[in-house]
């Protein structure tokens, strides 16, 4: 135990920069504790997503389900770089961030299965999970970006030194509302880190077929940008720290492009192999898997042992299994919940049901 190396420095890939004199450091320090923590986080997200896949195929989860496996380093790296009091908003591939922002696997899976124990009592589903300083989970592509700029405005307005991280994908990068947000964020120097998770495909459309420019980190034009290796949790962390510091220093918004990859198709109804080859997926898995990369670093620098990591894996599997048990046995929300939460801070009101004789109750 005390044989382990307590801390090591790693070389990380240099980021491409846009309108910046210098980028994040090319060396990252990692303590053993941090290493184990990042490993646990990524592995938990990985196992949770694979469990969701399983539950979906058993038809216990229904509707939309967009899985995050492959992209774990992004969520883990960002969370490692920001404070819990900072804010984060993302699109529909949100389960990873829901976890890193503090919601338990139990509450996430129970939300996916539509039960009362879900973080949104089963009323939201996959794309609508929330937590303090985590604003979902958003179904309409790109809509979360202006929201993120607005959250940043609130931070600036309140002078609380907090920042907002607003995530979007390569597909959403072509939404007009992003450019409107970039303009206002730059104009008003909002403390917003815009992050493009470029996983190379917007549903079934590759980046080359959707974007005239695939240099997503430059798309903010007058906004400085960084292009980051999104498969390396340390790279992501250093870049996110750099970006957060930039915002906190009052310099205005900044864009980060994380080059990453999703193993699953766009959603559970997309096999994910009609527009890309199995060889490509396999290549990424074998050469760039974020969890494997971290594991190799820890092992080859004697920062952890094989047995220790195996033990962690076992614990994680157990936790995910228990969460799945809960998620499949918890009851569905009662019908009384149907009309609640329409208005906030309102006295109870009557809501029309499906016919004029059906009068339902709504409480705030």
């Amino acid at each position, binding site marked *: 135990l005390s044989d382990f190396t307590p801390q090591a420095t790693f070389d990380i890939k240099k980021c491409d920069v846009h309108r910046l004199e210098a980028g994040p450091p090319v060396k990252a320090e990692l303590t053993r504790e941090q290493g184990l923590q990042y490993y646990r986080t990524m592995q938990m997200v990985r196992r949770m997503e694979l469990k969701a896949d399983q539950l979906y195929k058993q038809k216990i989860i229904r509707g939309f389900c967009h899985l995050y496996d492959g992209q774990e380093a992004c969520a883990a790296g960002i969370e490692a770089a920001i404070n819990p009091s900072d804010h984060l908003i993302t699109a529909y591939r949100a389960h990873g961030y829901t976890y890193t922002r503090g919601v338990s696997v139990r509450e996430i899976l129970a939300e996916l299965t*539509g039960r009362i124990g879900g973080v949104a009592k*089963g009323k939201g589903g996959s794309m609508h999970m929330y937590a303090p300083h985590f604003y979902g989970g958003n179904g309409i*592509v790109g809509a979360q970006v202006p929201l993120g700029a607005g959250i940043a405005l609130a931070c600036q307005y309140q002078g609380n030194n907090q920042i907002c991280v607003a995530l979007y994908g390569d597909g959403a990068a072509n939404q007009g509302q992003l450019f409107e947000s970039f303009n206002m964020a730059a104009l008003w120097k909002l403390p917003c880190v815009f992050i493009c998770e470029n996983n190379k495909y917007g549903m079934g459309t590759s980046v080359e077929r959707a974007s005239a420019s695939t240099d997503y980190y430059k798309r903010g034009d007058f906004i400085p940008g960084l292009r980051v290796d999104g498969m390396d949790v340390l790279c992501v962390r250093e870049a996110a720290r750099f970006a957060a510091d930039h915002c906190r220093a009052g310099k205005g918004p900044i864009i980060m492009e994380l080059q990453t990859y999703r193993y699953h198709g766009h959603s559970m109804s997309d096999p994910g192999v009609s527009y890309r080859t199995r060889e490509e997926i396999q290549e990424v898995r074998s050469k760039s898997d974020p969890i494997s990369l971290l594991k190799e670093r820890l092992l080859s620098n004697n920062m952890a042992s094989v047995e220790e990591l195996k033990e962690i894996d076992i614990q994680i599997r157990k936790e995910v299994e228990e969460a799945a048990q809960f998620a499949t046995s918890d009851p569905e929300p009662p019908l009384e919940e149907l*009309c609640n939460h329409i208005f906030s801070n309102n006295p109870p009101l009557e809501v029309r049901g*499906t016919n004029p004789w059906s009068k339902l109750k709504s409480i705030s």
Partner: protein
Amino acid sequence: MAASLRCFLRSGKRAVLVAVRRGFHSSSPAAVQVTVRDALNQAMDEELERDERVFLLGEEVAQYDGAYKVSRGLWKKYGDKRIIDTPISEMGFAGIAVGAAMAGLRPICEFMTFNFSMQAIDQVINSAAKTYYMSAGLQSVPIVFRGPNGASAGVAAQHSQCFAAVFLENELMYGVPFEVSDESQSKDFTIPIGKAKVERQSHITLVSHSRFVGHCLDAAAVLAKEGVDCEVINLRTIRPMDVECIEGSVMKTNHLVTVEGGWPQFGVGAEICARIMEPAFNFLDAPVTRVTGVDIPMPYAKILEENSLPQVKDIIFSVKKTLNV
């Protein structure tokens, strides 16, 4: 329905808001079963073949064969020029489609779901729908906007003023097969916009559109066993609405129930109530009953979702209450 899609595409200047649904409950012997998806696919294929000004654009319509596979095979057959994959830029590509229509082409603009169409609503209403009127007939906009209208019916999707056709489909119906007559299989078979269809004949009139026509027919089957005969009207077109058809029916039955998936306030049923009062008030033996979605956002949990939309039992209940039986 393939016929109504063809009708939109050919009608040029005229345009309407149509709720797609249902079928071909035809009296001539049914030759073949066609799913809703295939009917839409065939309609688009036939129009693409017939008129080279017709083209399809939208997200994933080409190489992915359509998010819901409605445009399967079309890109393979017609290529990049006629079947265009767009980036995720609804407002932009809706505007582009409208511009192309103004300049002489016949675009089919697909919204992956109508929830996304709300981003483009300005182009649909102000650029597409109103232009023929504002130009006093000089500038027409022969465009069809189509796509699945989810259960949480986008408020925006139910408004479309004249002269642009908005074809609202229902994703849950794509895989459902219907029997179609031989006649309807012809490439030139069209059905008129603005004409409802009476599905069965009597004591009470049920008016519906889209997926809920099926629910009405199911309810009618149950009620028939109890001696209550329902005349089921499939609106097919929301604007212009075939009020004459409803009126004619109410004059016979004296009772009316409307059924829809949308919200009650300012919905199709509300409009029918207002419209039917004018010609047929004295024919009504009871107030019109609206069966609608519950007045809430759509919840996720299955049990809540099921209870937020009209079920067959709600229709049966409402019919009996309206008839006071």
